[in-house]
């Protein structure tokens, strides 16, 4: 044990300090060199591919611009007025939040339950864990296309595989999964849960692995039952993992694009549109780049505000120290 803790000198440790002043100047230079070497490329990429596009989008959003020719027609906040008053955009925002709340309310508890189950000694546990993770590994386009083909029916001429099975077990008129505007978002949520539950479960399993075994032993000695143990020990100690997962889920819900785009394209009649789908449909595809940029900025601001609020109130405990102290 001790041998591991007391590691030998680092490979790069220099000779004994001789001539301290000269060395400290050199050390500082060396430190700067290392900072440049390690952080430089990342900072450069960040500036060029993250910050610059954000700034450019904000700039374009004040113009009526079709992407061709120079930026000439400055229109102030007109694009923003249009986004914020468009009922289709309102519906898109509503859909994003629909997915966001359903994910937190249903996917989270479901993932914890499955993780608790899989954390026990089970036959084929390794295999089960791998299977649950498979949907997450599949590319969105492949998965989306597969679901689209499985769900889309044109009764009575052609039933998709899922409706065919439902009819075999006696459900003669299955709902129009993708064609009914009142159902399509629930269908999308089902597909999203199938796709991303695996990630949540793996995260929860990792969190569970970090809970010390002796707490459970102590609880067992005190006569706590399984449910009581989970509720009073596992869930509180899983807190940081749950909060990080929820953060990822929130951001993913707000920026949802690819699966929706492939499965429904935002349809029928915009019933499954999201903010990002709206941006591509009304910005890029019709070449109103200025307007699309305004939508992008609104999407960015909504995500930013939600993320900041969440960090302030939910993640504060997990991040305390990491961001406020110990930088040096």
């Amino acid at each position, binding site marked *: 044990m001790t041998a591991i803790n007391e590691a030998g000198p680092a490979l790069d440790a220099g*000779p004994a300090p001789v001539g301290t002043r000269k060395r400290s100047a050199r050390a500082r230079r060396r430190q700067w060199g290392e900072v440049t070497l390690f952080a430089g490329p990342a900072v450069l990429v960040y500036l060029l591919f993250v910050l610059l596009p954000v700034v450019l989008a904000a700039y374009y959003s004040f113009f009526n611009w079709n992407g061709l020719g120079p930026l000439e027609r400055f229109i102030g906040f007109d694009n923003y007025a249009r986004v914020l008053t468009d009922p289709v955009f309102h519906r898109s925002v509503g859909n994003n939040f629909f997915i966001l709340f359903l994910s937190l309310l249903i996917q989270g508890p479901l993932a914890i339950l499955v993780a608790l189950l899989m954390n026990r000694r089970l036959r084929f546990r390794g295999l089960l864990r791998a299977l649950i993770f498979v949907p997450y590994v599949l590319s969105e386009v492949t998965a989306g296309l597969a679901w689209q*083909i499985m769900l889309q029916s044109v009764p009575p*001429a052609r039933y998709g595989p899922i409706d065919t099975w439902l009819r075999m077990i006696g459900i003669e008129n299955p709902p129009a999964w993708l064609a009914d505007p009142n159902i399509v978002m629930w269908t999308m949520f089902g597909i999203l849960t199938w796709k991303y539950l695996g990630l949540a479960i793996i995260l929860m399993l990792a969190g569970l692995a970090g809970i010390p075994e002796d707490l459970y032993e102590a609880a067992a000695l005190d006569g706590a039952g399984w449910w009581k143990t989970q509720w009073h020990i596992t869930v509180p100690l899983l807190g940081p993992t749950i909060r990080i997962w929820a953060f990822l889920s929130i951001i993913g819900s707000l920026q949802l694009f690819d699966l929706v785009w492939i499965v429904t*394209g935002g*349809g029928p*009649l915009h019933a499954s549109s999201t903010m990002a789908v709206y941006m591509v449909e009304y910005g890029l595809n019709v070449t109103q780049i200025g307007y699309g940029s305004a939508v992008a900025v609104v999407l960015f601001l909504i995500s930013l505000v939600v993320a900041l609020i969440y960090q302030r109130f939910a993640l504060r405990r997990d991040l305390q120290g990491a961001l406020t102290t110990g930088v040096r």
Partner: protein
Amino acid sequence: MNTRSTLRIAAGVAATGLAIGALAGCAAGGGGTDNDGNGDEVTITWWHNGTGEPLKSFWEEVAAEFEADNPGVKVDVQAFQNEELQRTLIPNALQAGGDAAPDLFMVWAEGEIKSQVEAGYLKDLSGLTDVIESIGGAGTGWNVDGKQYGIPYRFGIEGIWYNADLFEQAGITETPTTFTEFSEAINKLADLGVAPIGVGAGDGWPAAHWWYQFAIKTCSEDALKEAADTLTFDDPCFVEAGENLKAWMDEFDGDLPFQQNPTSTPAQSVPNSSAGLLAAQSTAMELMGTWHRGEVAKLVPGAPADNPPAPEWLAWMPVPDIEGAAGAPGAALGSGDAWGVYVDAPEETLKLLEYISSVDVQTRFAETGEIPTVAGAEAGITDPVLKQIAEGTVNAELVVTWLDTQYGPVIGKAMNDAIVNLMFGNGSPEDVPQAMNDAAATL
């Protein structure tokens, strides 16, 4: 240690330099070359969307022939997927300009070519008088303010693709020529147990084309022209078109005349698309452009991956006339694909365009299963169905370009959305021109 850390810093600097160089390279080096070959060598870059066979090899062949006839000229011909070419590659390349811009590339009619001309990207091709004369009326969509900026190489009208076997089984002996006869045919097909008409309303435009058909047959030629010129849609005929369409749809029971769940049905590419339904004989008819034969052929169950043959039962008829409608009786909807030339392209590009538009090349183009534009080249059409479309195109008294292409993507999108909502949602006939006017206000 000294040497080591110095080395490391040097390596770091070098790595950063490489990264910057690579990034800068992205900006500077992306694109073809025009005149920078050594000596008198000229390179012409040519972009098209014929990624499938036989077209891809055909254009390569044409480029090779031109190179052989013109020593010192190199033609760099490249095929790209359509949406990527139209929406990303060409706009970006034109915006970058100079060597990045292709010399010869596809241009889309009306609204789209107009904005490219206004931005100053296109060469005036009015000097190619012989070519322009030989393509006749097909060229009007690429004429901006009296100057020709695009030369179409493929042009045809849309019509109704139908399953002749199902027509026979349903007891339809003659193809309907009026909407009354058309409705009778639809009822007969429904009695047979198939969905009469397939429509990929999930993609918007395939459903919108039904409204376009009613619009060109309800609106007078003058009303259509004025709307296209001023982009105002106040003429009452646009509301009437929607009323007529709705009245026709309401003649039938239940979901007819279209298949169920139209708004979640895509148009192409997958077996559960409207093209796939026609290919699987689950629907009997579909309103589509000339390209539809290839789309259906691909999706016939069990079709080979390479050059699938069109099914024998697949037939074509012009859209029936609406009795008593105010519009031109012989009006048809159609469009085509055309070539445009970049404003700074080398002179040889015009020569290449002339060669591509020659009767010889266009005849061979027709032989690959296409409908050509140059007079005399129609001799190359061997297929009876394509011959029928070519004749229909020539006989049409007025060929109106797809309305969404004509009015540009912004109005086109608003119009198509409103039409789908009218047909399959809770929109009203008044909503369609209203949405178009609203969209026009954002231009």
